[in-house]
């Protein structure tokens, strides 16, 4: 299979759906333990068990928001799928249920978040997209990457997308989904938070505005039929289950970024609470940026 089996790992036991439901984040995060971050990687979010729980929760929040795990109009005959920045592997695992005949490969710079048991059709490879992917050209029918904006330095975006396109077969699809710093109906506390996120990102060489150029990157890398859409997702319990889930996720993201700043925990928490209140009062929506395109025929 692909001749790359030496790259892959399988695990033995996997937390059940019930486990993650029990462990889902609450509005008030547990009293702060020191968070673990990846050394030698420009990734702003932590890499620890708490973050793994958040990523699982976020996966289901996004499914509620978008109605599916992907946006490209995939053929039912899709047979090879790559997930870049797979994290906990939950996207790959759920895609294995939707495409039972497909071989799905997830790559990430660290394996620590993977569950212990996996569907037979899922494999995981340790790889850093910033260093190039360990796959031949034109390998996959569908290549997917989402929510990696806090891991990709601004000047690297074009080369990262070129790499995704390189490993995708002609007529195959490449899909990108990212979150930026646009909140519709944001109030002053939310604007302050977003401005602060932009500042700490920029200090690390990360430019959140890159997410508004996803379609350009795909086109420049050789994709056709590129479809781009900014999708506002209701943020807050005012919008029912979907909005409530996204609110919890957003609070956890901000909380996870807090150690990157000198702001005192109490002041930070006050700002977060004020922002959350604004989302409810103003009926805010968080804007996601999606783009997908088809790799041109040779």
């Amino acid at each position: 299979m692909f001749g790359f089996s030496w790259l892959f790992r399988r695990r033995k036991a996997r937390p059940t759906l019930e486990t993650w439901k029990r462990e889902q984040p609450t509005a008030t995060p547990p009293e702060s333990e020191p968070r673990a971050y990846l050394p030698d990687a420009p990734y702003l979010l932590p890499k620890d068990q708490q973050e793994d729980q958040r990523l699982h929760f976020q996966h289901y929040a996004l499914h509620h928001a978008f109605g599916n795990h992907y946006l490209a109009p995939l053929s039912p005959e899709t047979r090879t799928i790559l997930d870049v920045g797979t994290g906990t592997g939950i996207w790959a695992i759920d895609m294995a249920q939707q495409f039972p005949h497909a071989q799905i490969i997830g790559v990430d710079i660290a394996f620590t978040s993977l569950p212990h048991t996996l569907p037979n059709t899922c494999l995981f490879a340790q790889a850093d997209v910033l260093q190039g992917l360990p796959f031949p050209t034109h390998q996959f029918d569908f290549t997917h990457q989402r929510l990696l904006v806090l891991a990709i330095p601004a000047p690297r975006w074009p080369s990262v997308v070129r790499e995704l396109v390189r490993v995708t077969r002609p007529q195959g699809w490449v899909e990108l989904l990212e979150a930026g710093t646009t909140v519709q109906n944001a109030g002053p506390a939310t604007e302050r938070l977003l401005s602060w996120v932009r500042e700490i990102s920029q200090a690390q060489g990360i430019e959140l505005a890159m997410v508004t150029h996803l379609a350009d990157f795909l086109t420049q890398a050789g994709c056709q039929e590129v479809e781009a859409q900014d999708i506002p997702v209701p943020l807050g319990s005012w919008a029912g289950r979907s909005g409530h889930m996204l609110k919890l996720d957003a609070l956890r993201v901000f909380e996870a970024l807090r150690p990157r700043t000198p702001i005192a925990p109490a002041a930070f928490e006050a700002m977060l609470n004020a922002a959350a209140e604004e989302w409810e009062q103003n009926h805010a929506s968080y804007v996601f940026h999606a783009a997908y395109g088809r790799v041109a025929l040779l």
Partner: protein
Amino acid sequence: MSTAPPLSLTREQARRLQGYVQTYRRYAFASLMPGTERNTTLRILQALQGKLIDVMDQKTALFTCTLTREEMTTLKTMTTELLLLYAKEPASDQRNAVLADLAALKARLREGGNQL
């Protein structure tokens, strides 16, 4: 899963139908609140779009697309909603052409989709 009578399409008709599905998906993501009904409709249309692109890749002039009854029902709903949306736009030759095309599509879908 029961199937509706097959839908015979020319390449151009399939291209237009694919465009309508894309337009509707864009509208729904931008304007409708997430929920079970919206998401089910979007999933069905996305899968249908994948099927359409698949058959269009076959390079034949005329092809047949087999739709499930669920897909057929969703297409009818989509067509009705698109008709309402386009009807609100300022009058123009292009809008009128789209309205006529959508009305024809709706009629064929109502007939059972054995022709388009």
